[in-house]
Structures are given as structure tokens and as C-alpha cells.
């Protein structure tokens, strides 16, 4: 989230007025001008070369250069992470380095690094080979030694046996073998080396097959993984020794070894030679180790020097690439002396942009200044709201539904208050509210530190919505005070309860035993209601009615907004044939219900409002009887019902016909009289120009209006019902929290046992945090979101605009690969 600097006063209701601007920039100052505009970040360039492929554009070569440099930087970064070095986050002193120098420098550094690397690799290669060799010497030596020893033992046994009768157990063949003259024995050849453990089984199998079993393979596991000299990766390996006889077998074995990537090492049978080789290898290993260390030190030195300036270079290269991408969007004038840019900018930024252009001209000592020229257009401009860190999160909520049409009334102005408020209606508990507030206050206080850090996905969301959550918390403290709930415990904060027992007998609270002894409790719900048998009916009735009042109020606000939109865009049709009947329809039904609710509250009447509402439709002429709340109610109801009935065709029919008439008039060239109705030049033009191309499809318009009408009429009922979720969720919240309080905390308290109490407290805290503070917050958030998106915004919000995406360097740091 980037905070945009805004100079004009905040005007969140209507998006900034935008203008389409043409810039003509001389070629020599173009780069600088674009870079200044990027610093400013208030200009959205249009792609004037959309039909050209990327490499056919003017600055393709420079972009390639930048991409190449970016690749080098990635190469450095890769090596830095490999060696565990982090590029210094503090940006070094900005000594201006231009692109050409940087390119040369990067090239040099890369060449140097590659050379060092290749040297190191060579050294490592031989080092690893020696390590493997050493392992072979050790392991094979062991193999040979143990074989010899066991052979010797057997021979001795054999001799013993020969002296004796010769036991039946002694193998016959072995005997024969041993008896044969040593000189007649075929000299067996052998190959020794290492093979990776994964492949060792297959290796053995293939060897067996290839030589038809005429080999003897001995393997020994190397405990630690070894760095393979060829690939340079750590691999688990086995030392093997293969004995074979014959030249053909040898060839085959060598080929197989090669195929399996098994490194072979010579091995001397002679013990003294083995010993000599061992010492040689060890000595060379030590030598190599020091050389490698020096090489590594050199490398890390180089990387460190790169690391100092890495971030700065990276930013520079990114910026340059961005600038050239933008330059590619400009079209080149026929004379090839200047570039022509087109784009949107907010009207208030005119001076700043002109200033930036002037500075660019002066700084690049160009002869000709850049030209700034406002174009007239019929395109609809992008939507741009100046938000600050407080309002941006609310704007995000609205944007997630749809970007506002240009200069359409922006619901986020109201969302700032209504969203947290509706949330709080569902989340009314000032204890929970305080917990929530503390969390967000922590986030807000540590805002500076946290915003530079990378947070997790969920944390990121919470952090970016911190002001929304703060507002939600404050409002839920407020509604919590009204509901008089603190972790479902009532407090007598605003004075003593109005009710008291008539005598001592009414211990188990029921309203019957209570009488009113003082003035009404000054703020919110009387604490005495809590725990009484009639608590739920009382609160349900209260909250249900309150939900309807809030809903009708918010929907009325939505319809009012449609009036302001229509007035702003000078659309009289929408005022008279949409806004007025909608107002009448909604208020004659549900506005009347709200009125009844208020009257009932004020008078304390016993009337059944369901009955009134239902029979208002079913039999409007019947007598109201007990349910009459005020004089002339029946007459009023008839009037309201009639006006509601009239409002429906009023919404449906006139508008399409009038549109058709208007269209026909325009077609006959009579539209000039109509045009001067509005003052906004930007708004006239599309109307004026578009009718030439646009065919008027009456059936389409009519069906659209029909759908709109049906949606509104049905919506009036279903949306009002939808607001009852305020009651339902608030009921769920208070019931859940009282369950946790009564059934966990109080239950644990009742045992009079410290351990149980501690367990009870732990369970209570976990349940409160997990279920009430996290899950309930989420669900109440979602429901508030829905009420805004569906019930509120569908009354007026078109949301078919597109967002203003200025060319700005401020965004560069955020986009990471």
C-alpha cells in the first residue's frame, strides 16, 4: 500500500477530476522528463504503440540491456544467498552512477566473479576427488584387510581340519580351491571407486547381468554424504570394489561405471603403497584446503563489495527498465525529434507536471521545452481517489466490489462509519472490543517498523486493515456498552439498575418479582435483564427491531445517493422515474414499518406489528382493532399501499419510452437544445458523440428496466430481511460468550480447586480468543461486508470504472520477483 501525497483537500465522495493530456517532449530531455514524472507519480501513460510487438519498439535495445543487467544482478544475488550474505539493507550513499558506467561495472564484476568461481570449482573438484580417493583408500583397505584376515582364519582352520579327519561341515569346494597351487590361480583384476547409494542396487544388478554373474562386488557404506566432484552436490555414496576376470569383463565394467557416474580410483594391493598414497593424498588435501579457503575469502570479499551497493544498483536498473518501458509507449514524431505522450493526470497535478517538465528541460540543457496540452476526449477517464493511510483500507473494501465509475458517488465515504458500526452491532461486547482495540493499537503504534518488514499473508491483511479494525473495535465498545455486555457479564456502569425486588423472596430472578424503583437506566440495556427468564425475548425484540431500523435507514441512504448521482450527472430521467418511485415504494412499506416500530417504542403499545403488516396486504380495508397504534392508521395504510402499487409501474414503464423518444429526437438533429442542460463539458461529449454510432435497441432497454424493477421490488423485501442478520449474529455472539463464561469459567470456579480453575481459565481464554475474537470477528466482518456490497451499494453504485494507475517509482520497491 503506497500512500499517495495529496495536495488538494481530500474529496472522497467524487473521484478527482482527470484530464487527458498530450505531452510533446524533445528527444534529448525525454528520459529525464519521464524519470521526473515517475518521481512525481501522478501520470498514467497510454500505450500509443499497442500494435507493435515489444522488440519493434524504439527502446527495445535499452530494455534488453536493462534485462541483461537485471540478470547479472540476479546472478550476484544468487551467489550472495549461496554464501549466506544479505545485501545490506541500508542504501549506500547515493553517488550518481549512470547506466552506461553501471553496465560496464556489472560486466567486469560478473567476469571476475565467474573467473573466481571457475577457479574455485576446479579446486573444489580436485579436492572432492581427493576426498573420495581417500575414502576409497580407507574403505577398500578395510575390505581387503578383513577379507585377508578371514581368509587367513579359514586357511588356518582348514589346515587344522586337514590334520584331522576333515569335518563334514567344511565346504568341499573351498577345500579344493585352497589346495590348488597358488601359482595356478587366475589373477583377478579389480576396480574400486564410489557410486551413489541410490543407484548402487541397480549398479550391482546391471554388473551381475552384464558379466553373467562373473564378478564379485563388495560395497561399503560411507557414513557421511560426500560432495560429488562432477555435479558439486552432496550425495550419499558407497565405496565399491569389483573383482573380475578377463579383459572383456573389464571393458564392460568400465563402461557401466561410466554410465552410472561411478568415479573410479586406482587402489594398490600393496600395503606399503597404500600407506604411501594415503599420506600423499592427505598432504595434498591439506594444501588444497588452504588454497580453497583463500579463494573463498576472495570471493566473499568481492561479494561483500557488491553487496554494499546491490540494492542501489537493483533499484536503478529497475527504474531504468521502467522508464524505457514507458518511453516505448510514446510515439515518435515524424521528424524524429520529439516524443509524443498521451495519458491521464488529475487536474490538480497540472502545475506539478509542468514543473517537472520544465526542470527536465533545464537539467538536460535542451533548447526546446516540452509542451503540455490538454486534450478533449470522449473516453471515460480513470477513477482516482486521494486516500490516506486511514481511508485507503475502506476504499479497498469498496474497490474489491468494483472500481467506481468516473466521478460517481463513492460509497467509501459512508463505509468509514457504517461498516464498523454494522460490524459492532453484531459484535457488541465492550470486553472483546477492548481486546481488539489493544491488538490494533499495537499494530498502529509499531506501524513504521512493521510496514518495512515482510509479514505473513494473514498478518499482512490484518496490518493493512488496521484502521478498519480500530474503528470496528471502538464501535464494538460503544455497542457493547449499549448491550451492557463485558464478556457477557453486565456492569452497572451508568448508575444503579432501575429495577429492584419487591421483597426478599425474588432471589431467582424473574421479571415478575421485580418492580421499577428508580428512573430508567440512563444508557443502554438495564443490567438487571441479564439472567432473567425474559432476557432473550426482550433482547431479541429489541435487536430485531433495531436491525430493521438500521437497514431501512441504510437503504434509504443508498437511494438518496442515487439521487445525488443523478443530479451530479444531470440525469433527470433517473430522478423522476427511478429515484422518486423507489423512495415511495421502500418507504411506504418498510419506512412505514419503521415508523410503527418507533411509535410502538414510544407509546409502549401492545400492538402486534406482524399482524399489522401482513393484514395491510391481505385485507387492507379490515378494522385494525387492538393493533391500532394511532388515529387514521387505516387510511394511511390504504394510501401507502396504493402508492406502493403505483410506484412499480412508475419505475417500469416511463423510462424506456422516454429514452426512446429522446433518442429519436436526437436522431433528427434536435439534440442541441438538450445538451446545454449540463455544465460539465466532459460529460456532454460522450452523449453527444456516441449517438452517431450507437443503435438504440428498445427491447434491450426495456428488458433491462424490467430486470431492474423486479430486482428492486423483490430486493426491498429480501434486503430488509437480510438486515436481520444483524440481530442473528449479535444473538449468536452474546450466547456464545455467555456459554463460555457460564459453562467454563464459572463451572471451573465452582470446584474450588486451583488446578481445575487454571485449566478452566486456559480453556476460557483459548475459546474467547479463538472463537470469539478471531472467528466471530471474521464472520461479523464478512456479514458487514455483504450488507455493504449487496444491500447498500446495489441501490446506487455502478462500479464499472477503471482505476488510475500512475507511472510511479514508489511502486517499484514493492513488486518483488
Amino acid at each position, binding site marked *: 500500500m503506497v500512500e499517495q501525497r495529496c495536495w488538494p483537500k481530500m474529496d472522497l465522495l467524487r473521484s478527482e477530476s482527470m484530464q487527458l493530456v498530450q505531452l510533446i517532449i524533445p528527444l534529448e530531455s525525454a528520459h529525464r522528463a519521464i524519470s521526473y514524472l515517475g518521481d512525481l507519480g501522478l501520470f498514467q501513460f497510454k500505450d500509443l504503440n499497442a500494435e507493435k*510487438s*515489444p522488440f519493434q519498439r524504439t527502446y527495445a535495445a535499452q530494455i534488453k540491456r536493462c534485462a541483461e543487467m537485471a540478470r547479472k544482478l*540476479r546472478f550476484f544475488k544468487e551467489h550472495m544467498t549461496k554464501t549466506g550474505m544479505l545485501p545490506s539493507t541500508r542504501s549506500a550513499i547515493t553517488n550518481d552512477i549512470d547506466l552506461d558506467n553501471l553496465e560496464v561495472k556489472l560486466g567486469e564484476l560478473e567476469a571476475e566473479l565467474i573467473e573466481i568461481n571457475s577457479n574455485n570449482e576446479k579446486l573444489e573438484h580436485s579436492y572432492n576427488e581427493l576426498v573420495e580417493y581417500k575414502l576409497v583408500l580407507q574403505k577398500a583397505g578395510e575390505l581387503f584387510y578383513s577379507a585377508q584376515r578371514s581368509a587367513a582364519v579359514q586357511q588356518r582352520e582348514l589346515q587344522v581340519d586337514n590334520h584331522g579327519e576333515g569335518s563334514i561341515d567344511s565346504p568341499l569346494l573351498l577345500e579344493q580351491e585352497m589346495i590348488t597351487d597358488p601359482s595356478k590361480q587366475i589373477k583377478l583384476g579389480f576396480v574400486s571407486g564410489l557410486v551413489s547409494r541410490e543407484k548402487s542396487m*541397480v549398479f550391482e544388478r546391471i554388473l551381475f547381468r*552384464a558379466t553373467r554373474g562373473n564378478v564379485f562386488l563388495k560395497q561399503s557404506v560411507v557414513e557421511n554424504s560426500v560432495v560429488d566432484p562432477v555435479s558439486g552436490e552432496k550425495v550419499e555414496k558407497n565405496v565399491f570394489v569389483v573383482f573380475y576376470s578377463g579383459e572383456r569383463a573389464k571393458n564392460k565394467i568400465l*563402461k*557401466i561405471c*561410466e*554410465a552410472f557416474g561411478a568415479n573410479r580410483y586406482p587402489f594398490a594391493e600393496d600395503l606399503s603403497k597404500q600407506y604411501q598414497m594415503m599420506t600423499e593424498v592427505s598432504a595434498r588435501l591439506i594444501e588444497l584446503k588452504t588454497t580453497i579457503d583463500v579463494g573463498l575469502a576472495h570471493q566473499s570479499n568481492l561479494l561483500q563489495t557488491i553487496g554494499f551497493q546491490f540494492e542501489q544498483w537493483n533499484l536503478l536498473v529497475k527504474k531504468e527498465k521502467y522508464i524505457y518501458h514507458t518511453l516505448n509507449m510514446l510515439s515518435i514524431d515524424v521528424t524524429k525529434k520529439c516524443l509524443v505522450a498521451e495519458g491521464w493526470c488529475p487536474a490538480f497535478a497540472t502545475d506539478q507536471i509542468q514543473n517537472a517538465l520544465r526542470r527536465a528541460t533545464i537539467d538536460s540543457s535542451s533548447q526546446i521545452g516540452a509542451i503540455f496540452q490538454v486534450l478533449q476526449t470522449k473516453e471515460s477517464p480513470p477513477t482516482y481517489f486521494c486516500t490516506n493511510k486511514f481511508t485507503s483500507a475502506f476504499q479497498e473494501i469498496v474497490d474489491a466490489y468494483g472500481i467506481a465509475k468516473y466521478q460517481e458517488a463513492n460509497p467509501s465515504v459512508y463505509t468509514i462509519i457504517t461498516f464498523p458500526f454494522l460490524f459492532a452491532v453484531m459484535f457488541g461486547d465492550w470486553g472483546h472490543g477492548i481486546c481488539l482495540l489493544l491488538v490494533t493499537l499495537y499494530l498502529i503504534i509499531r506501524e513504521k517498523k512493521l510496514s518495512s518488514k515482510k509479514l505473513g499473508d494473514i498478518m499482512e491483511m490484518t496490518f493493512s486493515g488496521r484502521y478498519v479494525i480500530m474503528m470496528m473495535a471502538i464501535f464494538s465498545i460503544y455497542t457493547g456498552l449499549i448491550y451492557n455486555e463485558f464478556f457477557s457479564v453486565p456492569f452497572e456502569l451508568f448508575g444503579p439498575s432501575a429495577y429492584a425486588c419487591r421483597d426478599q423472596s425474588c432471589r431467582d430472578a424473574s421479571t415478575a418479582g421485580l418492580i421499577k424503583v428508580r428512573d430508567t437506566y440512563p444508557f443502554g440495556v438495564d443490567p438487571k435483564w441479564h439472567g432473567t427468564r425474559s432476557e432473550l425475548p426482550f433482547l431479541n425484540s429489541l435487536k430485531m427491531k433495531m436491525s430493521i431500523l438500521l437497514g431501512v435507514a441504510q437503504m434509504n441512504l443508498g437511494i438518496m445517493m442515487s439521487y445525488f448521482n443523478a443530479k451530479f450527472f444531470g440525469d433527470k430521467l433517473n430522478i423522476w422515474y427511478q429515484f422518486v418511485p423507489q423512495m415511495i415504494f421502500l418507504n411506504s412499506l418498510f419506512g412505514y414499518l419503521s415508523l410503527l416500530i418507533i411509535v410502538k417504542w414510544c407509546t409502549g403499545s401492545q400492538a402486534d406489528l406482524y399482524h399489522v403488516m401482513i393484514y395491510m396486504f391481505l385485507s387492507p380495508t379490515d378494522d385494525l382493532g387492538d393493533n391500532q397504534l394511532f388515529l387514521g392508521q387505516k387510511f394511511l395504510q390504504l394510501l401507502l399501499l396504493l402508492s406502493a402499487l403505483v410506484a412499480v409501474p412508475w419505475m417500469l414503464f416511463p423510462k424506456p419510452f422516454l429514452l426512446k423518444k429522446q433518442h429519436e429526437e436526437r436522431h433528427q438533429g434536435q439534440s442541441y437544445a438538450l445538451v446545454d442542460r449540463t455544465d460539465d463539458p466532459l460529460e456532454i461529449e460522450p452523449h453527444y458523440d456516441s449517438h452517431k454510432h450507437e443503435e438504440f435497441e428498445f427491447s434491450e432497454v426495456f428488458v433491462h428496466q424490467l430486470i431492474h424493477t423486479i430486482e428492486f421490488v423483490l430486493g426491498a423485501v429480501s434486503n430488509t430481511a437480510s438486515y436481520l442478520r444483524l440481530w442473528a449474529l449479535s444473538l449468536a455472539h452474546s450466547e456464545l460468550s455467555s456459554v463460555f463464561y457460564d459453562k467454563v469459567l464459572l463451572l471451573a470456579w465452582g470446584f474450588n480447586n486451583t488446578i481445575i480453575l487454571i485449566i478452566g481459565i486456559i480453556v476460557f481464554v483459548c475459546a474467547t480468543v479463538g472463537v470469539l475474537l478471531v472467528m466471530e470477528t471474521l464472520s461479523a466482518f464478512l456479514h458487514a461486508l455483504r450488507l455493504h456490497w449487496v444491500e447498500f451499494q446495489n441501490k446506487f453504485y455502478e462500479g464499472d470504472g477503471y482505476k488510475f494507475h500512475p507511472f510511479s517509482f514508489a511502486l517499484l520497491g514493492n513488486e518483488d520477483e
Partner: protein
Amino acid sequence: MYGFEALTFNIHGGYLEAIVRGHRSGLFTAADYNNLCQCETLDDIKMHLSATEYGPYLQNEPSPLHTTTIVEKCTLKLVDEYKHMLCQATEPLSTFLEYCRYGHMIDNVVLIVTGTLHERDVQELLEKCHPLGMFDSIASLAVAQNMRELYRLVLVDTPLAPYFSECITSEDLDDMNIEIMRNTLYKAYLEDFNRFCQKLGGATAEIMSDLLAFEADRRAVNITINSIGTELTRDDRKKLYSNFGLLYPYGHEELAVCEDLDQVRGVMEKYPPYQSIFSRLSYGESQLLDKAFYEEEVKRLCLAFEQQFHYAVFFAYIRLREQEIRNLMWISECVAQNQKSRVHDSVVFIF
């Protein structure tokens, strides 16, 4: 099972089908090819590719590029996608996916064996192998001297083993032998694959039988054309044709006796689906035949995406991606060798 795929297919195959269809939408369109054909240098190609799905695979390549690097990296992308899908797949899709790569295995085996015969370095040969057709002990193929050894040493462990039953001889390997081996293996492979698909049933069987029949017929034509003028007898030639497909069995009888290209053409023109391919070629011209076949294949592969709930999309996607890589290779070669006039000769547009 036929007709009820829609009911159960998505339990196991839904996710992967979605993935493969997503991959398919990443294939180049005619506009992409137009842009690519206008490139002046390999760097231009790289620049264009960096805006596509190949971008991440090429972005870290230092600038003087080679055609081989481009092709290698693009193939790597296909292999990555294939491996991902294979990891996610359950039976029988995983077997199906395995089947898709056997063709490459056969090619790799042949490549290594031929290479060893001509005493090329094994490592060098391994680099040329298609990564989809790699298996563990492929390098040890170089040890074998004849078919029997080849089979006993290495291939017995691979899924190709059953296909060898027909071509185990103790003769030493030579070029002719190897070529016959390749075709026998391919024949066995295609027949096996076809059987497997028929066993799966449903839309998979229907579409795959069409695709595989086309493949078999194409191979039959190619075998015939390539064997004209060699010492291969008619009976031997006939043995190499797969025992299914549109041409089987009568077309095979006729193809087996063909002595020149025009006769082949005469045979093929009797079959309506192939008539259009051959009618486009002028007499005595065989270079364009490959392209014509490829175009026909691509058309059929694209049609596979029109139906849902079957496995042929995986096969089709892999094939299409390979075609795209072939196109890319051709374009890059043309650009690298300054033969831009020939760019359109061999590029098969997919969409």
C-alpha cells in the same frame, strides 16, 4: 462405464484436467507466432518469450543465446509440467501419463544405441536425449552389443520390456537392425497403448483411438516411404505396421507392395481423411508431407479439447506442446541462420 464419466471423473481427474486446460491456454497463438516470425535476432525471441509462460525459464540465461538453450529450457518447462501432473495423478491416469512418454523412451534407446554404434561419447548422447524419455539405467545401454544383451541388461527393468518380445535376436546391432527395432517397438507400444485406452473406455477410448489410429497410419506411411529402395522385404515391411488404424488391414496390404511415392499416394487417396492431405501435395513431393501430417495431427489434437471428462487432453497437450517447441526451434534456427524467408516452411500454427 461409458456415458457416466461426468458423474465420477472429477473425483480424481477434475483437478488435473483443470490444470492441463490451463496449460493449454498458455500455448502460443497465431499472433504470438507472427511476432516471433518477425524477430531479427535470438535476443528478440528471448524478449518475446519473456512475456510468455517461458519467461521464468529463460530469464537467467546470459545474453548470447543459442537455439539449443532455448529449446532445452522450453522442453524443461514441459517436463516440469509433466512431472507435476504425474505427481498429482492417481490410477489409471498415472499409467496413462506414463504411456505418453514411452515413445520418447523408445527414441532415446534408439538414439543411444545408434550413437554407441558410431562410437559417440555417452555423455554427449545423454544430453541429446529427450528428458521425458529418461530412465535410470539409460546410460548403461552403451554396454550392449546385440538386442539380446540390450534386453537382458537394461530394458528388462523398464516398461518397454514387453515390447521387446518380438525383436530379440542375437544379431549384432547395425543401423538397419536398429531402425527395424525402433519400428517394431513402436508398433508394440502403439498397440499396447491402444489396448490400454480401449480398456479405460468412455470418451478416452473414443478420442484416443482416433488419435492413435492417426499415429499408426502416419507411421505406416512413413515406414513405406522410407523403406522404398532398401533391402527390406515386403513381408518384413508389413510386419512393422501396427495392427490397427484406418489402414488396417487392407491398406497395409496395398502399402506393403508400394514401390514409389505415387503408389503410396494412390493407396492413401482411397481413404477420405487422408485424401485432403495428399491432394494438397503435388506429385513426387515428399518434403511437405511431414508438415501436412503435422497439421492434420494438430487439428485432431485440438479437437480433443472439445470434450470434457477424458484423458486424451493430457496426451493432446503434451503433443501440442512438443509441436510448439518444434516450431520454436525452427523459428530460432531460421533467425539464427538468417534464413528468415523459410520461417513459414515448417511452422505449424496451433490455434
